[in-house]
């Protein structure tokens, strides 16, 4: 009696009897107390270009010390990292890397940023929070790549130490989130607003999947919502889908669909719209005022950067982002 607990970290809000694991697999009720099973135990550690997250308006051409633990709050059928996101902590090969060691390693590898990524960082909230606090003291930036499926209170607390967030807005229908991801859209939209409100630099990624979320009407609605609630400066990345995990029967997204989505977003009024997983000039950053080429990219590699002191080198207009 009295040993049941309810997790209040994400909108799943799992109610757990003694000995039960949370849906994300990363938390467990032990004797009426909820514990994190992944604290200091990342299963993925790497040094990545910041452009891979993707962040195109945040310290370009720098590297990010990237970590992830097992588990995820959602169960997307197209997950690219399902081997670790849909695994229990005991099923993955984990490092022993406490928060201070993460910061030390990031400094050793000369990374300007620590990124909490690959799986959903919400599942290793305590680990991320402690690491971010230490990193801040050493002037290392904190960024996360998240699905935004987190409750408002923990997100606001975390935002004090988070410099930027790349949020996957997977679609703009509740039906997609329910059927394909096992979640809900509304909490994700709320997280986007909270992050903006807390002053965290925000970039949004939308993976366009044929037949599931490639309806241009819905994409237009999504872009209008972004402009209305987050502003036109938020960079939006349309990413090309490739058959994966439980969606192997679908074809890759046609490049024309990505092009149409980008055109739609720009027509609606978004200033910085990019394409991902596809080589084109839509990987570059152009000045929204004079249309000059500001950052030329080839994949994750920055070939040239014409932003100086946060301004366009050609017309002097401020370019939204965190540039130094």
């Amino acid at each position, binding site marked *: 009696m009295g040993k*049941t607990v309810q997790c209040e970290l994400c909108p799943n809000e799992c109610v757990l009897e003694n000995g039960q694991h949370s849906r994300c697999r990363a*938390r467990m009720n032990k004797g009426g107390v*909820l*514990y*994190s*099973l992944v604290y200091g135990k990342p299963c993925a550690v790497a040094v990545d270009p910041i452009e891979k997250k993707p962040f195109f308006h945040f310290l370009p051409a720098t590297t990010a010390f990237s970590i992830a633990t097992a588990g995820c709050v959602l169960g997307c059928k197209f997950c690219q990292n399902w081997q670790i996101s849909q695994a229990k902590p005991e099923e993955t090969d984990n490092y022993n890397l406490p928060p201070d060691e993460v910061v030390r390693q990031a400094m050793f590898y000369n990374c300007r940023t620590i990124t909490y990524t690959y799986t959903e960082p919400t599942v290793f*909230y305590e680990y991320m*929070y402690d690491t971010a606090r230490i990193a801040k003291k050493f002037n290392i930036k904190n960024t996360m790549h998240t699905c935004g499926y987190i409750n408002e209170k*923990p997100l606001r607390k975390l935002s004090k130490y988070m410099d930027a967030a790349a949020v996957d807005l997977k679609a703009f229908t509740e039906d997609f989130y329910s059927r394909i991801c096992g979640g809900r859209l509304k909490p994700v939209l709320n997280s986007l607003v909270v992050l903006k409100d807390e002053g965290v630099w925000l970039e949004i990624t939308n993976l366009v999947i044929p037949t599931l979320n490639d309806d241009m009407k819905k994409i237009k609605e999504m872009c209008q919502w972004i402009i209305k609630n987050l502003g036109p400066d938020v960079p939006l990345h349309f990413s090309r889908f490739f058959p994966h995990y439980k969606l192997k029967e679908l074809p890759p997204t046609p490049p024309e669909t990505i092009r149409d989505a980008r055109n739609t977003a720009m027509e609606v009024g978004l200033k910085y719209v990019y394409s991902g997983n596809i080589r084109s000039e839509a990987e570059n950053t152009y000045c929204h005022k004079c249309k000059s080429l500001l950052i030329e990219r080839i994949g994750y590699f920055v070939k040239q950067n014409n932003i100086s002191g946060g301004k366009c080198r050609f017309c002097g207009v401020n370019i939204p982002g965190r540039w130094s």
Partner: protein
Amino acid sequence: MNEKVKVEAKVKETGGKITRREFLGFFLFGGLLSLFSKKIKPVVQEKSKKAMFWRKTDEA
């Protein structure tokens, strides 16, 4: 005296080479050792980290 000479000669003759039987013995022993070492993980006293953002359901 002759006996001792014979023994030394035999050692020199093999030149540190092992027999097929000995090789097989070492091979199997190594294999078994490898298998067991994979099964046995060092027992580390792990401190669990108490989670943030949860509540007991019987609390109002």
